[in-house]
Every structure is written in C-alpha cells, then in structure tokens.
C-alpha cells in the first residue's frame, strides 16, 4: 500500500510538471509571439523590441521556462507587466480568500450531498428520489450567475439578511467574514452539491446490484442497514473521488461567483489579468490554480487507496 501511495505522489508531481510545461507552451507557441499578439498589429518595431526585452523574450524559450520554473519553486512568480508589483504579494492573500470561500462551501456541501445522496439511494424510485433527480438536474443546468442573482434577490434585496457584495479585507473579524461570504458560499454549495448528490446516489446503487448485497438482503437485513454497513465501505472510493473532483471544481467555479459578488479572490485577479492581457500574472494564476487542482486530485486518490478494504491486507 505504501508503494502505491508513493507512486501516486510521484505521478502527481509529474503531472504538475507536465502542466507547467503546457501553461508555458500555451503562452509561447503563437503565430508571431506574445509581444506582437499583445501589442496588436499597429505596434512600432521599437515598441516590440522594448516589450520583448521586458518579458525576457530575447532569451531562448527553454531557458526562460527553466528560469520561470526555478523562480516559481522558490516562491518568486515574477513581476506583473501592468503595475510592476511582485505577483506573489498579490496572489497569496487572494488565494487565501478563495480557499476560505471554497472551504466554507465545502463544509456545507459535502455532508449535505453525501447524506442526501445516500438517502435517495435508500428510497430509490420513490417520490423523494424522483424529486431529488429533477431538482439536481435543474441545479446542474443553471448557470452560476443565475443562481447567484436569484439568491441576491431573495436574501439581499427582499429579506435584507446578507449583503449583495462580499467585501472582505485583511484583519477582518472571523464572524463578519463568514456573514459576508455566506451568499457566495451558498451559491457554490448548490452548484457542487447537486453533482455530488447524483454521483453518490449512483455509486451506492452500483454497489447495491452486486451479489454480496443480495446475500445480505436474503439474510433478512433491513435496507438501511445493508446500505450503511455493507454497501458504503465499497462505495466510499467512488464517492471520495467525486468529492475531490467537485472540490477542485469549487476552486474553479469560484471564478464566476467571485465576479458576481465582487469578492477579492484569485479568480478575479486572473480575470483582470486576462482582460489587461498581463501574461506573467495569467501564467502565475494558472499555475496556482493547477497546483490546487492537481493536489486535490492526488489527495483524493491517496484517500481512495487508504479506504479501500481490499488493499488493507498484504497479499
């Protein structure tokens, strides 16, 4: 088992490396180069030369990639093109905000989704199950901002319980922060919980059709007991994978939610950088997002190895 985990960790690092190459290549292999793409066709040759130098484009690309990677590993993500500030200083507090929001949403979403998923698996084809099927389908098909605006109209315009803009600043008391981020967190919860619920339900039901479950029923065990005691340990692995996938989606889904609630997170920074075409900042944000995403997936796979009953004993 230890070997499996080490393998998975190495694979995670390898993936991250491949992703960093991909992010770098995406901003490199262009018709022309970054400088002419960003400055447009009307740029004078002098401006192009200066701009290339500023970006370090006068050095061969493999060297630039190496410098970028080494810098990133040392916590130096470079300098922003537009305001000449250190990118790390902008990224870190915003990453903190984004992770806070994602964690808040996850804390509500995971117990809710897994619980309701198991509940509708127990009540398969009954009213509760059918209702949850149609409601989750609707929640999945709604765009993020639609849910967000509906919530704003209900809880902020009509009831005036929560603010419609999530303003946070460093040194804010924890309680205030929670109140401010409640609406975005609920929006995110609705988005990911629906998907998690459906997957939990289907992975429990997949296990339910195996012979050993039939055996448990034939022994006379109650449906609830069979599901919790017999089916869940084997359904845990797919459920964990789904949770991780959705947590990773949470971190990305925040990009749109942050825009709706004007929340100072990493997604906002990246969107701003894209509209200003600030390539170093885009690369840095992309790398940080990819890191969070890959680590969550790696963590999930390791958990799956740990909870799998079949891998507990040496063969």
């Amino acid at each position, binding site marked *: 088992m230890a070997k499996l985990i080490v393998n998975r960790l190495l694979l995670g690092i390898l993936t991250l490396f491949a*992703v960093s190459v991909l992010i770098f290549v995406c901003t490199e292999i262009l018709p022309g180069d970054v400088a002419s793409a960003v400055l447009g066709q009307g740029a004078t040759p002098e401006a192009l030369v200066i701009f290339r130098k500023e970006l370090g484009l006068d050095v061969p690309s493999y060297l630039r990639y190496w410098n970028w990677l080494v810098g990133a590993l040392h916590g130096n993500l470079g300098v922003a093109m537009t305001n000449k500030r250190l990118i790390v200083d902008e990224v870190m507090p915003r990453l903190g905000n984004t992770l806070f929001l994602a964690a808040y949403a996850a804390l509500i979403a995971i117990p809710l989704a897994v619980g309701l998923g198991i509940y509708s698996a127990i009540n398969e084809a009954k009213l509760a199950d059918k209702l949850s099927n149609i409601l989750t389908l609707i929640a999945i098909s709604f765009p993020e901002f639609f849910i967000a605006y509906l919530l704003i109209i209900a809880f902020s315009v009509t009831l005036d319980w929560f603010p419609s803009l999530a303003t946070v600043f460093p040194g804010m008391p924890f309680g205030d922060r929670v109140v401010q981020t409640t609406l975005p967190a609920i929006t995110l919860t609705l988005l990911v919980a629906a998907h998690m619920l459906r997957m939990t339900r289907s992975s429990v039901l997949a296990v339910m059709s195996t012979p050993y479950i039939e055996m448990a029923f034939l022994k006379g065990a109650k449906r609830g007991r069979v599901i919790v005691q017999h089916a869940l340990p084997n359904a845990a692995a797919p459920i964990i994978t789904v949770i991780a996938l959705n947590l990773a989606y949470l971190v990305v889904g925040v990009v749109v939610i942050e825009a709706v609630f004007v929340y100072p997170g990493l997604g906002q920074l990246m969107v701003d950088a894209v509209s200003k075409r600030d390539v170093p900042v885009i690369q840095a944000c992309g790398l940080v997002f990819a890191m969070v995403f890959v680590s969550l997936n790696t963590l999930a796979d390791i958990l799956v190895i740990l909870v799998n009953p079949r891998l507990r004993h040496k063969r």
Partner: protein
Amino acid sequence: MKLFGHKPTTSAWFGLVVVTLFVCLALFTPWLAPYPESANIGGTWDEPSVKMLLGSDQIGRDMLTRIMYGSRMTIAVALAITSLSFLIGIVLGFLSAVVGGWVDVLLTRLVDVMLSIPGLIFALIILGVFGSSIPVLILTIAVLDSTRVFRLARALGMNLTVLEYVEAARLRGEGTWWIIRREILPNATAPLMSEFGLRFCFNFLFIAGLSFLGLGIQPPYADLGGMVRENAAAINFGMMAPIYPAATIALLTVSVNLVVDWLLSIEARPSGAQAEL
C-alpha cells in the same frame, strides 16, 4: 406519439418543445423580434409594459429583442464549438482506438495532461494571450472540449474494434479511414448523440460564463452572458433586468438536459424494451 421508437416522458416532452421553440427562434429572429437589434426604445431599465414585454436594458433597448438576438448568437457559437469539438474528438478518438500503438499512447497522454487542469483556467490562459474574438473562442473551447469527446470516442472504439466484423473488414484489406467511417461510426452513434446534447449544454454554459466575465463574445453582438453582465448593476436597485437573460440560459440548458436524460434512460434499457417510465 413516439420518437426513436419510444414514448417521451412528460419532462422529456417539455424539453423537446422548448428546444424546438429555441431552434425556431434562432432561425427566424429577424422576423420574430419586435424591434431592430440595437434600437433605443425607452429609458434605462424601464419596467415591463405592453410596449416592451420585459422592459428595457441598461441603454434603453428592448429586453425581449435583445434576448432573442442574444440567444441566436450564443446558440450559434455553442453549436459551432460542439460540432468542431466532436469532429476533432471523434476522429482522433477512433483513430486512437483503431490504430493503437504509439499514436494511442501519445494522444491519451496529451489528453490526460490537458484534463489535469480545469478547462476554464486553460481557456483564460489562451484568451489572455490571443485576445477574445469569436474564431479564437470557438477554436479554444472546441479543442479543450474535444478532450472529453476523445475519451468517450476512444472507449467506444476500443469496444467495437475487437468485434468480428471489424476484424473481417481488416482481413479484407480495408483502410483505417474506411473502417472508422463504415464499421465503427454507425455503431457508436447512439451514445455519441446523447453526449452531443450534454457537451452542447456544457459549452453553452461555458461561453455564457466567459461572456459574463467579459472575456467571451464582445459587444456590439448581443449575447446572453454579456447581457447579464451589462445589466448586473440593476440588481442593486432591486430590478430584475439581469434575471431575464440568465433565466433564458437556464431554460435552454435545463430543456436540453431533460431530453438527454430521457435519451440516456432509453439507452440504459436493454434493446427492444418498451417500458413506460
């Protein structure tokens, strides 16, 4: 009434009717819209009235007209993306399954790496460098989306390529392209069709999301995500303006999903089964 030899459920009927309405709307927008696309009729965010059924937008254009033109634009772009993505994904996926060897290894690894970062982040990186024009948008999202189609097509192809009739075609000396087109594709149409619906929904939401962020389809074109963004400020005055375009997006995606859900439930049943749902 039966479709594909099956009776649609109530929710499937709802989906089918709405999707058909949207298709008609997209095809005949200029004749159906009450006003020209960019005519200023009223003031900023006028209340809905008989003259303007959904009120007006942030610069006094008729909301209903804008939604019609916006739907047309967003649907067209999403369809273009999904078609291109299926073209790329199916060709490469089947090729990977039929040819195997290093082609398969290379393509699968590339797709694995591309799928290991979220599509939105990837799209943002590319749009940040290339800038956001409609061809760039279509190409970027199509390539990103084709990775999912590739996986499905490859899995389907893998199952089909080991069957006797494909083997027979090979022994007969047919070329790879012929095998893909005449032996594999016809037998993989059903699952690919429902996947097309799902991918369309996903791409529709994706493009709407990008436009909402201000990085998708740019003005002067009307598009649903962009309209939500432009009218977003109205929400602070308790006005419904951004809700209308957002609800339009939701209505279309829910409807397509309902149809797909029904199609999937047909496939899940053994062939020939006519169980009523």
